[in-house]
């Protein structure tokens, strides 16, 4: 390879414009500690540093405050391992859905038992529990209806670059609503939450609700039927300010077309 060729690869690499086979070729040179490639890259990068340094911009003070808070919240002994595992073991989704459904069923049995044991003494409590049971039952019926109806769509959502190993599944029924389960998402930063969007035809995306994830990266959402939305083309998840936004504004984490 001539010096000019190496110079071209280094320039494009530093600019972020290299791709495909050429990117692999240049990265191989860097891994092999090729002296010409390293020198050319250092030159290209230091030029871009100077270019950036020509227009420094003071960042908003809130960024440093948030960072220092995030660092202070880290356990002291928990410096991360130098090498992170390349891929996290994928947890299958169906057990998450089923265990949720089973837990809900078990909860219904427990509530029912406690109701029968005490109803003579606590009629008001009975009424309250019965309401709870009915609500529980309604939600179970919804899930059952969604699961049984052949009109239900199953949409798989794949992780996008912010979280490539994330994935999710949406069981969607136009008149009954839907059940959404996601796994492998990073915990949202403070003040942020994930928002699910339904995209139908050429219309603006419709919010299907806001959810968070637990420590293992799993989250779920039960979605009521969306007024005016029948055939959904795609579901997507973006990171938004907690509470959600009327229209998507943040990065997209998951996308699945139906």
């Amino acid at each position, binding site marked *: 390879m001539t010096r000019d060729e190496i110079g071209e690869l280094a320039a494009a690499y530093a600019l972020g414009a290299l791709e495909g086979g050429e990117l692999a070729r240049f990265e191989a040179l860097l891994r092999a500690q090729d002296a010409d490639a390293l020198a050319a890259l250092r030159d290209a990068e230091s030029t871009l540093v*100077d270019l950036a340094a020509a227009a420094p911009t003071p960042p908003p003070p809130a960024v440093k405050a948030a*960072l220092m808070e995030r660092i202070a919240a880290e356990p002291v002994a928990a410096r991360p391992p130098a090498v992170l595992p390349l891929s996290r073991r994928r947890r299958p989704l169906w057990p998450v859905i089923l265990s949720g459904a089973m837990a809900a069923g078990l909860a219904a049995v427990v509530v029912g038992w406690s109701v029968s044991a005490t109803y003579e003494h606590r009629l008001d409590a009975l009424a309250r529990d019965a309401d709870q049971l009915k609500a529980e039952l309604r939600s179970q019926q919804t899930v059952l209806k969604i699961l049984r109806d052949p009109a239900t769509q199953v949409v798989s959502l794949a992780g996008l670059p912010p979280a490539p190993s994330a994935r999710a599944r949406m069981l969607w029924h136009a008149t009954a609503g839907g059940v959404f389960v996601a796994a492998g998402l990073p915990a949202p930063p403070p003040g942020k939450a994930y928002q699910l969007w339904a995209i139908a035809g050429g219309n603006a995306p419709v919010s299907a609700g806001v959810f968070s994830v637990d420590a293992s990266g799993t989250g779920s959402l039960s979605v009521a039927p969306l007024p005016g939305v029948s055939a959904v083309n795609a579901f997507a998840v973006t990171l938004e300010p907690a509470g959600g936004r009327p229209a998507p*504004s943040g990065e997209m984490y998951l996308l699945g077309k139906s």
Partner: protein
Amino acid sequence: MPPAVAGSETFPALIARIATGDRDAFSRFYDLAAPLAFGLIRRVLRDPEAAAEVLQEVFWQVWKEAPQYDPKRGSPEAWLVMRAKTRAIDRLRSMRRRDRTFVGPVDEAVTRAEDAPGENPAARAEDRGLVQTALAQLPEPQRRVIEMAFFDGLTQSEIATKLGEPLGTVKTRARLGLERLRGALGEGRMSAT
């Protein structure tokens, strides 16, 4: 350029201290280097909120990955600026992908950040203020290639398609442009001192 600082306060020394979990060193490094990274991020992302988020992510990476910093591969400034550039361009691409998916109105603040790359070079160049003085010394074809790659996040084959030029021409322009820029920025620094 890092301000003149001594001993334990040079960038490499600060990175070494950050690698041991030294929060004061991190705070100092942030104060010295954040404007450099943020200047670049803001040039890639017009949306101030998205830019602030990217800056936070970049410095969070600095905190997490300081132990992996290898001085043989480049200066801490280059390490930081390349991270800032990569993350900002990732964000720009992800916003473009999102806007292609959502065929409806999105927030005004976001659409403004999505000016079509290179379509109004004069207005964009003006917006880029000081950077323009160094870039302005490049012949127009070289300047466009560098801007489209560095600030708009296009790959060299995307640039070739957009300009209707052979890929080889785009590659040569990127290399010559950077070489010339190095000369221009070097002179500027000398005349400023």
